[in-house]
């Protein structure tokens, strides 16, 4: 390598010219779309900042309890997979061009593929009665392995996502639990070998609960 003084001088001059050209970018305000992403980014990272809204069972005493359906329980701590589910929702639900990996037009393939990868039978519940149709789904990395992620939307384009992961053998079934961070609300539960998290940025708690209930009924006919 030639390190003649002239060569060093030339590199230095080139470096200065490049900085003159491109350093102004550093001072530009970060555009909204990247800032929006950034806020979603921050959410999962600041675990302590998670505003966890534990729902007292009493506050929804009026909810019609199905005999075999989990009740909403006060919760201790939001599991990691719920945070991942909220981030996945925030990441993919605003996506216009690539919201899913496999579209609803290939639903059979999608479900078979995800079931194979998760090593458990995964189903995409039909939520038309709740006003949501399947957009499709994708495979995501979870804490311990692959995770299935389904997206649904209303005719107006409002989206919810269902995050499904396999649970460790020791994990017991749980009641519906609720968590919220910013405007992403999540109902989550464990049913048999699978853990579920249903996320929305648009719906209120009660409306999301109604959809969670529809999901649960679909999967437990």
């Amino acid at each position: 390598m030639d390190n003649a003084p002239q060569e060093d001088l030339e590199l230095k001059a080139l470096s200065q010219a490049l900085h003159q050209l491109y350093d102004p970018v550093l001072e530009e305000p970060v555009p909204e779309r990247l800032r929006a992403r950034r806020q979603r980014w921050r959410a999962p990272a600041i675990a302590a900042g998670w505003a966890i809204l534990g729902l007292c069972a009493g506050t929804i005493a009026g909810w019609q309890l199905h005999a075999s359906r989990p009740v909403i329980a006060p919760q201790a701590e939001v599991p990691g997979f719920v945070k991942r589910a909220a981030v996945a929702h925030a990441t993919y639900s605003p996506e216009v061009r690539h919201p899913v990996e496999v579209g609803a037009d290939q639903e059979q393939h999608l479900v078979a593929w995800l079931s194979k990868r998760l090593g458990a039978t995964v189903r995409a519940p039909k939520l038309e009665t709740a006003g949501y149709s399947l957009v499709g789904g994708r495979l995501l990395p979870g804490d311990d392995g692959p995770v299935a992620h389904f997206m649904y939307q209303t005719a107006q384009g409002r989206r919810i996502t269902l995050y499904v992961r396999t649970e460790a053998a020791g994990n017991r079934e749980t009641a519906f639990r609720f968590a919220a961070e910013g405007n992403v609300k999540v109902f989550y539960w464990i049913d048999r070998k699978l853990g579920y998290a249903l996320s929305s940025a648009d719906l209120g708690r009660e409306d999301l609960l109604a959809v969670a209930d529809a999901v649960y009924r679909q999967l437990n006919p």
Partner: protein
Amino acid sequence: MNDAESIVELIPRLRRYARALTGDRAAADDLVQDTLERAWSKFHLYRRGTDLRAWLFTVMHNVYVNQLRAARPGAQLDEEMPELSQAAHETAGLELRDLDLAIRRLPPEQREVLLLVVLEDMSYGEAAGSLGIPVGTVMSRLARAREKLRAMLSGLPSGGLQLKIVT
């Protein structure tokens, strides 16, 4: 500072590099956005304690290469870009906009090496790590990039770059 906050701090650096790489504001921010999304989905692959900036540049490199392949299917990454016309370079001194144009006429893999080493001030080893290539390849690509810049900017095959140090 946790990892996510560190990434947020690095967004302006990612934008600067992407701008230099693509030469286009919207394309650069698309690249940054895709990089951030991919970084999050692949974050389990990041080894804590290692250089986060280098890892993010690796992610951006992979996204960029995929974009190039998608835009020009079948094209080789080291395909030569057309040379600047002589007419555009009648002035003796270097204009910054000429440099900007010349950089975008470098083959992408030479442009990446040049920008990582000269603009991002990475060592050859760091650049090699980010791009997943041997150090020797970094050095040879950098040499070729500088040779091409010299040729394009001076109109001479091996003349000196007409740059003045500005302080």
